[in-house]
């Protein structure tokens, strides 16, 4: 089992900075998800941990040992690739056996033809067979051992790739978007299986994905990467509820968080769309952005409610989203509502509000600013607007 530490890891490709100084400590046995929009450098970071790509500067430590310049196979990490990367000419059994054969056989015993004459080979090969069959049984692949990867479904291939990773009992696992080639239903199923596998193996998992649902459901911590930096690290709930940066707020959560232009007044009061909020801040006066999650938006009139026109309705069965066009904002505001209530007509006028506790405010540079409700407010659940 392994603790993985990254200190000031930078990577540049032809003068383009991909990673701009990553500091990250991944605890032993942790399931950490690296998420971020495509091109944010998360896959590059994973490949640097794996040793497939050298970093431009900074260091990687595994269990306290610096591994720069150590070959990928010697780092004792296993990786599961997005495309599974199974050897197309080998059977499932041989695919899973490759890492064991490369480790346990001597170079001579691996030679084609003459390797068979090697005295140790038979005994080692029996050990390999036992291990492969144990892993195959664990992943329900026992019936497929003789097939070639071309004859397997996407989910089965994925399991073979996992099998090849776990068979040699590495200290850590690296996953590079392993579920993105599966259909939606299978993805949900594999999500549960991977989380189960983590509980079973108790090894360190580093999981790269752009799918926040995967990150939220499986990981113990999420690291949000944007433009080559880790912007926030925390538990899924923390990252969702308490984004430290507007880019995190906008990336995490689907549909996207509602962002409204606001102003911090000289008297520390907060205004949004020209309406005063019953919130104070310690931040300096100036422009800011006020964000509210769609599920925290409330329909109906109230003091200071925002008026708009319904432009689109999305009825998803268990929930419904109402898109509301509001003056002075380009993107429509979204409200998530329960579908049992009467949904408004498209084109009809509607009013939106939200409570003070739903507000997440960010300054002009995108950093989170703390807001507090004035002490005089004593109502349990008070409208922020009004």
């Amino acid at each position, binding site marked *: 089992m392994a603790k993985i530490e990254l200190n000031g890891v930078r990577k540049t490709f032809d003068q383009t900075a991909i990673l701009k100084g990553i500091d990250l400590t991944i605890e032993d046995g942790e399931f950490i998800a690296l998420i971020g929009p495509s091109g944010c450098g998360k896959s590059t970071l994973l*490949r640097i941990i*794996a040793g*497939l790509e050298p970093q431009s500067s900074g260091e990687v430590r595994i269990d306290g040992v610096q591994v720069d310049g150590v*070959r*990928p*196979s*010697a780092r004792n*990490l*296993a*990786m599961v*690739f*997005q*495309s*599974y*990367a*199974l*050897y*197309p*000419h080998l059977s499932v059994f041989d695919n899973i056996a*490759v*890492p064991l054969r*490369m*480790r346990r056989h001597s170079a001579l015993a691996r030679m084609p033809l003459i390797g068979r004459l090697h005295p140790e080979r038979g005994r080692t090969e029996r050990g390999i067979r036992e291990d492969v069959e144990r892993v195959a049984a664990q992943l329900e692949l026992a019936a497929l051992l003789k097939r070639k990867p*071309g004859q397997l479904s996407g989910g089965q291939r994925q399991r073979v790739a996992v099998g*090849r990773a776990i068979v040699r009992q590495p200290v850590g696992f690296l996953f590079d978007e392993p579920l993105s080639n599966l259909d939606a239903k299978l993805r949900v199923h594999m999500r549960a299986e991977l989380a189960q596998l983590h509980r079973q193996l108790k090894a360190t998992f580093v999981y790269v994905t752009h799918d926040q649902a995967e990150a939220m459901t499986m990981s113990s911590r999420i690291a949000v990467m944007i433009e080559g930096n880790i912007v926030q690290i925390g538990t899924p709930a923390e990252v969702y509820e308490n984004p430290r940066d507007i880019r995190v707020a906008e990336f995490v959560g689907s549909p996207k968080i509602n962002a409204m232009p606001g102003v911090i007044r000289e008297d520390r009061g907060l205004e949004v769309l020209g309406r005063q909020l019953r919130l104070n801040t310690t931040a300096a006066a100036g422009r800011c952005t006020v964000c509210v999650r769609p599920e925290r938006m409330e329909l109906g009139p109230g003091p200071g409610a925002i008026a708009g026109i319904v432009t689109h309705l999305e009825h998803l069965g268990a929930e419904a989203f109402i898109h509301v066009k509001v003056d002075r904002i380009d993107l429509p505001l979204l409200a998530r509502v329960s579908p049992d209530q009467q949904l408004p007509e498209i084109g009809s006028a509607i009013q939106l509000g939200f409570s003070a506790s739903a507000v997440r405010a960010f300054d002009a540079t995108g950093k989170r600013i703390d807001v507090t409700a004035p002490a005089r407010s004593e109502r349990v659940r008070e409208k922020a607007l009004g």
Partner: protein
Amino acid sequence: MTPRHRSIVWSFTRHSLLLCGAAFILLPFLWMISTASKPQTEIFTKSIHFIPHSFALWDNFATAFGKANLWRFLVNGVVVTVSIFLLQVLIALPAAYALAKLRFAGREVLFALVLFCILIPPQATAIPVFLLFHKLGILDSYAALIVPFTISAFGIFLMRQFFKTVPDDLIEAARMDGISEFGIVWRVMLPTAIPALTAFGIFSVVAHWNDYFWPLIVLNSEHLRTPPLGVASFRNEEAGTNYGPLMAAAIVIIAPLVVAFLLAQRRFIEGITLTGIK
């Protein structure tokens, strides 16, 4: 004209054009078989006839095998072409892998040089190579027939283009599994490249089995002759060329190629379909 008529006319023209093309290519072969089946007296006649009046194919084969050591020529041909192909693969695969998948300074320049080498005709280097082999004292040997062709720029180019299409993930998975770079070439790249290798094999074997120019220059000994040189030994300027046995010998030496091509063609097409599905 209705569209139906038009399609019939077009189909007719198309097929006649194809038939003309096929006839143009197949006629020399038919003529070879026909001549090989005729006795000497029937070959030079005023009228053209394909079917011989008296069937002399077996006699001509017997004469051909009696007059020259055809088996020896065939064995020479196999030794030379197979050695050339194996050595070409041994050199082209690692080179192509490096050019396609490894990052190093000067890679593009090296690849441009490989492309440039394809442009050099073998005749241009024939005399320098001949002089070099003379100095080394290896003229008139199997080595002289094989060594000049072991590095195939075309082979490197072809395999490099194919390796470009192999996903990087596969190579990185192999590295994670602990396979060395040379191991990747032989254990991972070679098996995925079988279709491209088959195509290259066809080009290589056909070219060197049929090569007349280079063996003619470097060989003196009769026992080293490759099949095309062997056939040429039937030409006799004083006594007149004996065409019946010559054509029979020609049939014998092209037969392995035709059979090999028909067998390989199936794999070849299978290979192309396989890569298409991927």
